[in-house]
């Protein structure tokens, strides 16, 4: 009936079905591409994890409903860490694995939203940010799910429709891709060129490290202090921040789709040295051009740039009609 009314373009009046419209995490700062709010998925890469744990950010899980909850609606919130199994069809942890955490239980659901504030360390269950960098913790999914009584359940007795579950997924991706192999570096006086080989598929980009301070192969990039430049292809020319007659150490890392960086590749060094631009090359070959506009050539040996003046003179000539019938002079 409603569909018919909508098809006819008539306004429809119906009681909205109580449901979650958004399930999101607030105040969780992640690198680009790691936040998928439409699917309630948040991915922490190695640096996201290290930063969040070190700062012990307090984040907020929030579920927003389309209308106010009907009276006597109850809810619970469960956290399923990696390795645990939660039953998201009950508001208790009976039957759940031991590691399933009941964050809230059988509370009254009032208004149009439910929020849960929790620190990152409490959520993840560890407080050492180095664990993120060194794969001291395993990657995995943390599912924070709200379970609330289904006001639309019209069937009598206990059944699968008694509760509704709306999960929010926070995933740790702490695996580093393998390192590429740096094949060659060369340098001019202000440009450094590097090329490398990567055997890792699904690499989003590469990050080249360069510094006058030596660094070692296999170092985790978060511990490398140096300038960086990103590349989409397996070669790069870098022209910023270089000085002539200096030795630069160069290494490259793979960056995967989550922004995780591989350990540093083998490191090559190169020395910047003076080069000859085209004018220097021309003059060093014995070229005679001395630059300048009018004064370079001996008097009487050149024509000054009077083109503009001549043009103005000639164009001041009167306009005339051309050959043709009816042409007006």
């Amino acid at each position, binding site marked *: 009936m409603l569909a018919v009314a909508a098809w006819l373009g008539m306004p429809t009046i119906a009681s909205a079905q109580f449901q979650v419209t958004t399930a999101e995490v607030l105040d969780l700062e992640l690198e680009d591409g790691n936040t998928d709010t439409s699917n309630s998925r948040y991915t922490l890469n190695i640096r996201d994890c290290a930063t969040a744990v070190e700062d012990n950010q307090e984040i907020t899980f929030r579920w927003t409903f389309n209308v106010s909850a009907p009276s006597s609606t109850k809810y619970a919130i469960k956290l399923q860490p990696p390795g645990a199994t939660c039953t998201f069809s009950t508001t208790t942890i009976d039957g759940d694995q031991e590691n399933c955490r009941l964050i809230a239980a059988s509370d009254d659901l009032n208004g149009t939203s439910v929020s849960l504030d929790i620190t990152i360390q409490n959520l993840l269950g560890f407080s050492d940010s180095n664990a993120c960098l060194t794969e001291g913790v395993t990657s995995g999914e943390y599912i924070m799910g709200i379970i609330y009584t289904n006001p639309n359940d019209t069937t009598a007795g206990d059944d699968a429709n008694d509760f509704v579950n709306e999960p929010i997924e926070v995933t740790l991706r702490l695996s580093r891709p393998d390192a590429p192999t740096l094949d060659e570096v*060369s*340098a*001019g*006086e*202000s*440009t*450094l*060129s590097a090329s490398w080989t990567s055997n890792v598929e699904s690499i989003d980009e590469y990050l080249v490290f360069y510094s006058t301070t030596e660094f070692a192969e296999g170092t985790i990039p978060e511990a490398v202090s140096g300038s960086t430049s990103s590349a989409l292809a397996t070669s790069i*020319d870098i*022209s910023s921040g270089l000085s002539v007659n200096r030795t630069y150490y160069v290494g490259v890392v793979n960056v995967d789709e989550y922004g995780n960086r591989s350990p540093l590749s083998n490191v090559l060094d190169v020395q910047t*040295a*003076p*080069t*000859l*631009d*085209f*004018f*220097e*090359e*021309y*003059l*060093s*070959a*014995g*070229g*005679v*051009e*001395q*630059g*300048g*506009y*009018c004064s*370079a*050539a*001996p008097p009487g*040996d*050149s*024509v*000054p*740039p009077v*083109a503009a003046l*001549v*043009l103005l003179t*000639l*164009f001041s*000539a*009167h*306009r*005339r*009609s*051309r*050959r*043709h019938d*009816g*042409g*007006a002079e």
Partner: protein
Amino acid sequence: MKRTTAYLSLFALPAALALSVPASAEITLDTPEVGYNALEIRISRFNPEIDEEFDGASPYDDTFDGARPYNLEIEYDRQFYEGIGSLGIGVNIGYNRIRGNARTLDGEDSPDKTRLLVVPTRLSAVYRFDELPQNYNIPFTFVFKVGLDYAFWSIGDAEGQTAEVPTENGDPISGRGGTAGWHASAAVHLLLDWFSPNMAQSFASNVGVVDSYLFVEFMTSQVDDFGSSTSWNLSQQQLWVGLAFEF
């Protein structure tokens, strides 16, 4: 010899096109009622004779790997005399930019970039022999030009700045300047109106372009400050292809 043959074969292109059109085609050579202007847009390869100055060395070819980039020019002509054909003057400006690798002191390519930018300007006397389409239903106009050149140029160093080369007296030589010269050219213009008179009529009434041409032009230019002993050689032998519009 080979280059000359290639140039001649390109001149033959418009002729071949013209011969492929039915003999019944009628030429409608429209002409503007007041004044007469022409705009030419054309393309060629940039090929300066900088290395001709040297006996064995080739800094241009070495730096730019012998590249001959395309360059674009625009010319505006204005006629001021009508007799057998017409006489006028034309001004022209172009743009050429070429990049290459700076060289190491050992003569190898380095990752540093260097560039040469040349902006040629020309002032030409233009003679158009357009009696053939006017009186004999033959869609060819011959155009001859002679005039003065002035090429502005600049060389960029590895850091993207204008190159500066230190000298013994302490005053660096700046890698920018201008070089004067002269040019002469001959062109064959194929009147496109001949192929589609109706479209040409529409183009004239709607846009104001009375005649359109496809042309090839051979130009020789001597741009070396008229043989100055302190000038390099930006002379070129160029074959241009372009479109010309009279309005």
